[in-house]
């Protein structure tokens, strides 16, 4: 047992006052001669025991009350079992993982903990030592000079801590501490883990230290998040689609915005587990970058509600189609269909660029810029042409030979060495139908009805050893042969209608995809530029492309960093923020790197671990609880409770036990559960202390709260809360009242931000202009402040039917001590009233003198005006507490009927 203010114990002798007073009073008693003491003594002998006992008990109780009061003021501390040393060595492990950004009551869990930690440090003694160790999925920076510091020095270090984007791993810091301390020291030190205690931090086994304390945040509310974003397959360069993997239990909305400012949004269904949602992006240029942000509607953990993505679409393969007859490009010849399907300008069905060129005898083919050549009915090839094609194929590029309807087989003799098959004479086709190709892309053919395809004539192909047959006629003759060691294919028929009806059959796409895959290689997928926070950005230029000397890196927070290119590569050591990092090369080449917090660490799952390896302290009162465990408990409240009990007993005894019930009731009222209930959900009148005359009607709130508790079932707290904007209690109040006559000082940007945050978080600001002057200084200040906090929004006069006229009493107009026009204005934010501005001096109607008469006259006057003012006040309070539930359809008929009846 110890005392916070032991000097107060000097007042302990005051406890003897009742006893001395008793003695003194006895001595001061008038001496009276009485005829006989016989009866008096007789009665006294009968009652002496009980009377003396009662007197002694009363004196004792009075002495005890004073004794206990003195004790309670001295701050009695009962030392806990946790420590008995005079110095405390406290290691504080601060979780900086991004799940600590979870919002509780308008503030993140991290800032709650930091505020409480600073309270804790202020309570510690100068001789105590603190070791601050931030961590996430790695040990934080101060570990490098890990040292014990005084609480004050630690307090100065706190502002440098902030929530990062890493995961959580509790094993790391605990292991580090264990390694730091010899075995004998482990028992001496106290460890405090400031974290959300979520189970995602327990992937690795966690060392259990003896005196470790953690924070318990209670049952967690659900957290929605985006797990990842991918480009939907098959990739369509002209109309790409994104697949967004979300985890949302309830339906919500999913939005995707691209760096170029396009935005798509749609509602999505909810459910358990990771859900797949596909979103079609707006039409873009085929070579444009696909970068931007996918976001869910924000919830308590905003970091994981958005996901940045960046994809670079592959370069479409360019194909040269050489034909001999000009009619090739016209229907019903094959060129026409090829052109339609691979048309660059139209919505191409396959991601290839094709160039058609007539194969004239003198034309220069210039094949180097193409990946493949389609040789359709080319006629006789010259030696040079054949050589060029051979070299082309020799470079690993593709060639598709389509013999024309009448092409003689000798036309292809010059290419014999590279073709996988010989081209034979033309034969008439058999009955309709095709034999399913035995290829990997067989699934492309599965849903197609191949029996309808009629090949009316085709060349007989002679398969060589290096050829694979991919398509056969019903009788088994090969229709498509591709070389397995080079990218050369030969088909037995042209795509023209005269040879087959394939061109008008859906199987054409599958057929072309098969052939192009053979001659061009597999379709390239978009390249993803996804990084997690902390990863470096590395960009290399290959030898074929020109590397710039410098690049400009734009970070998500708007910083521009110039990077020098060395050895054809540029290196940015570490990304620190999630977002899009834009790399601008000098030649106007742009790259986007999408950086996200690591989703694979399960940080978004906030489920707390059931039995953490530490003693859990309640998140909202952990400092007291921790100090109680560490230093002992302040027993003041227990002693005051005892004082009250003694006081009740004293009153009971001195009133001769006749009025037992009032004292019993008083005692029951004082029982702790009642105390707890008092500060739970009672409405507290909260007033902002701003301006020289912030409280023009200091007693109005008493009358208002009395009115509220008489007319409604709203529990009210008898005390008001007068706060400033910096006060954390602001965010505990559903409504704050700012009253005044003169304009307060201009708000700092910080204050405006707090005010704006408060209103955005659901708070209501009720501004009372009590100056009696419309358009005066106070009003100008109000307009200016609201403009600064909400540039887009403005105050609007309240009209008949506004929800403020319905929430409790039905009203038709605003009222107050005066009637201005307009008297009441509101600023609506997100479909609700966020700011109420009153010029009618509404609070003035409440002030009363000691006899209960109104203190200020109403202008123009009338009891009804005052009564309406009171009703409007109640309506505003009820609106702040219940919102617009009265506006729903359930009440409508009744409201309409009541409005019609004209009853005020």
């Amino acid at each position, binding site marked *: 047992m110890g005392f916070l203010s032991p000097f107060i114990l000097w007042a302990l002798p005051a406890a003897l006052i009742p006893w001395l007073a008793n003695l003194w009073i006895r001595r001061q*008693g008038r*001496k009276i001669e009485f005829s006989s*003491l016989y009866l008096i003594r007789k*009665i006294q002998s009968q009652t002496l025991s009980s009377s003396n006992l009662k007197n002694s008990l009363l004196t004792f109780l009075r002495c005890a009350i004073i004794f206990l009061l003195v004790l309670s003021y001295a701050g009695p501390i009962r030392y806990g079992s946790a420590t008995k040393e005079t110095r405390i060595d406290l290691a504080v492990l601060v979780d900086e993982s991004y799940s600590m950004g979870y919002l509780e009551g308008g503030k993140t869990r991290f800032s709650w903990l930091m505020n409480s930690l600073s309270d804790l440090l202020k309570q510690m003694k100068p001789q105590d030592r603190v070791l601050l160790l931030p961590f996430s999925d790695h040990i934080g920076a101060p570990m490098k000079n890990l040292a014990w510091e005084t609480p004050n020095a630690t307090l100065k270090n706190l502002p440098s801590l902030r929530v990062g984007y890493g995961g959580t791993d509790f094993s790391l810091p605990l292991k580090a501490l264990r390694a730091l301390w010899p075995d004998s020291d482990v028992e001496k030190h106290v460890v405090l883990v400031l974290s959300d205690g979520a189970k995602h931090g327990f992937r690795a086994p966690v060392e259990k230290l003896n005196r470790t304390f953690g924070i318990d945040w209670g049952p967690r509310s659900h957290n929605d998040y985006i797990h990842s974003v991918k480009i939907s397959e098959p990739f369509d360069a002209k109309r790409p689609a994104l697949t967004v993997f979300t985890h949302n239990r309830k339906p919500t909305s999913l939005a995707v915005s691209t760096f170029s400012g396009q935005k798509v949004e749609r509602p999505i269904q909810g459910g358990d587990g990771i859900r797949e949602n596909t979103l079609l992006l707006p039409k873009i240029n085929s070579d444009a970058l696909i970068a931007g942000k996918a976001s869910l509607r924000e919830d308590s953990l905003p970091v994981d509600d958005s996901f940045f993505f960046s994809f670079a679409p592959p370069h479409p393969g360019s194909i040269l189609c050489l034909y001999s007859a000009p009619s090739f490009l016209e229907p019903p010849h094959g060129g026409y269909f090829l052109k339609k399907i691979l048309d660059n300008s139209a919505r191409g069905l396959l991601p290839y660029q094709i160039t058609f060129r007539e194969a004239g005898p003198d034309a220069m083919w210039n094949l180097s810029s193409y990946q493949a050549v389609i040789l359709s009915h080319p006629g006789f090839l010259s030696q040079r042409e054949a050589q060029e094609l051979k070299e082309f194929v020799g470079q690993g590029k593709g060639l598709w030979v389509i013999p024309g309807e009448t092409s003689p087989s000798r036309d292809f003799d010059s290419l014999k060495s590279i073709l996988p098959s010989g081209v034979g004479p033309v034969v008439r086709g058999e009955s309709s139908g095709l034999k399913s190709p035995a290829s990997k892309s067989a699934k492309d053919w599965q849903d197609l009805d191949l029996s309808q395809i009629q090949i009316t004539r085709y060349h007989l192909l002679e398969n060589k050893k290096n050829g694979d047959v991919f398509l056969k006629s019903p009788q088994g003759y090969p229709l498509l042969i591709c070389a397995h060691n080079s990218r050369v294919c030969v088909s037995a028929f042209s795509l023209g209608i005269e040879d087959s009806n394939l061109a008008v059959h859906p199987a054409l796409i599958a057929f072309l995809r098969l052939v192009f895959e053979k001659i061009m290689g597999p379709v390239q997928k978009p390249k993803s530029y996804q990084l997690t926070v902390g990863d470096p950005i590395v960009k290399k230029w290959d030898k074929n492309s020109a590397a710039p000397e410098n690049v400009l890196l734009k970070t998500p927070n708007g910083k521009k960093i110039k990077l020098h290119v060395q050895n054809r590569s540029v290196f940015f050591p570490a990304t620190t923020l999630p977002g899009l990092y834009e790399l601008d090369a000098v030649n106007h080449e742009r790259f986007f790197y999408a950086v996200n917090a690591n989703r694979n660490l399960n940080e978004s799952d906030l489920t707390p671990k059931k039995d953490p390896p530490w003693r859990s302290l309640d998140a909202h009162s952990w400092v007291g609880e921790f100090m109680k465990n560490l230093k002992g408990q302040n027993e003041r409240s227990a002693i005051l409770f005892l004082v009250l009990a003694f006081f009740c007993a004293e009153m009971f005894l001195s009133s001769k036990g006749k009025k037992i019930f009032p004292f019993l009731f008083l005692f029951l009222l004082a029982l702790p559960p009642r105390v707890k209930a008092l500060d739970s959900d009672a409405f507290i009148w909260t007033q902002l202390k701003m301006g020289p005359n912030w409280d023009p009607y200091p007693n109005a709130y008493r009358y208002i709260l009395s009115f509220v508790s008489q007319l409604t079932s709203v529990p009210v707290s008898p005390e008001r809360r007068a706060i400033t904007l910096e006060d954390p209690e602001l965010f505990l109040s559903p409504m704050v009242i700012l009253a005044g006559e003169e304009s307060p000082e201009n708000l700092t940007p910080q204050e405006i931000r707090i005010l704006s945050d408060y209103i955005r978080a659901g708070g209501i600001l009720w501004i009372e202009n009590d100056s009696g002057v419309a358009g005066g200084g106070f009003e100008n200040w109000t307009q200016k402040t609201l403009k600064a906090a909400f540039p887009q929004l403005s105050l609007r006069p309240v009209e008949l039917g506004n929800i403020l006229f319905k929430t409790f009493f039905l009203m038709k107009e605003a009222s107050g001590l005066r009637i201005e026009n307009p008297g009441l204005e509101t600023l609506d934010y997100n479909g609700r009233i966020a700011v109420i501005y009153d010029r009618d001096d509404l609070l003035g109607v409440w002030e009363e003198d000691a006899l209960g008469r109104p203190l200020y006259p109403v202008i123009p006057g009338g009891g009804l005006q005052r009564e309406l003012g009171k009703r409007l006040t109640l309506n505003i309070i009820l609106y702040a507490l219940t919102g617009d539930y009265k506006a729903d359809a359930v009440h409508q008929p009744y409201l309409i009927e009541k409005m019609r009846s004209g009853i005020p």
Partner: protein
Amino acid sequence: MRYLDAVTITQLKGLRLFPKNLANSSEMAGAHKNPVRGFSRDFFQHRPYVPGDDPRTLDWKVYARLDRFYVREFESENLFTSQIILDQSRSMIFHSDTNPPKWDYACRLAMAISWLALSQGDALGLMTVSSGIGIEVPPRSGFPRLEILDARLSEISPQGLSSPETALPMTASHIKKRSLIILISDLMGNTEEFIKGIVSLKTGRNEVIVFHVIDPRERDLNFEAPVVFQGMEEAGEVAVGDQEFRLRYAAEFEKQIKTYQSAFHQNQISHQLFTTDRPLEESLRRFLRKSALKAR
């Protein structure tokens, strides 16, 4: 006279002391009717002569008319002796506020009774007692006794302790004749001792009346707490700081009165309570009327 004034006399005129059992026992003729016929001025009846009757009682006029012997009978009227015993203990000096001290009240009461008795021609004596016998005025008749009594009473003041158990039997031994003993006392003290002492006065030949004089404050202990009581006759102090005590005291006092009344009733002793805030004539008149009714 100090303790008797004309007003009292006026108020007491027409009242008489009626001892219940004493009238027939007096050897002297007096004012009190005797059931035994005797000699007096009041004719009672004629009765036929029987042998043995005193021939002097023969009514010769009747014999002349009727030629038969008739005897004349007269009502017998006797004198009796009254003995006042006045409590002279220190407690009698007590008085509250504007009320007279019990002693003065008791003296006035004694003088009033004396006037009544003497006016009836009875003999009256007076003794004062505290721890022992104080003054003693032997019983004589005749109004000049009043002056003597008043003078003797004026000379003394209350002093000494009351010891009823010893003092009262002592007074009884001083009373030679059959007497009406009137004890005037506050009876403040040990209840048992008072009862024992008073009962010792009541012998076969004496009749006892107790005039119980109290101050109203002795009845309800009407003091503002806290009070330290000092006994007038006892040593020591008693502190009383509790209003509740008053209620208990009042109840106990009531109980004491009941105890006295019950004990006196059993021993055929009359009892009358006088409080000093009421005129003594009023209480005395009530008592005398009551006893007159009983005597008839």
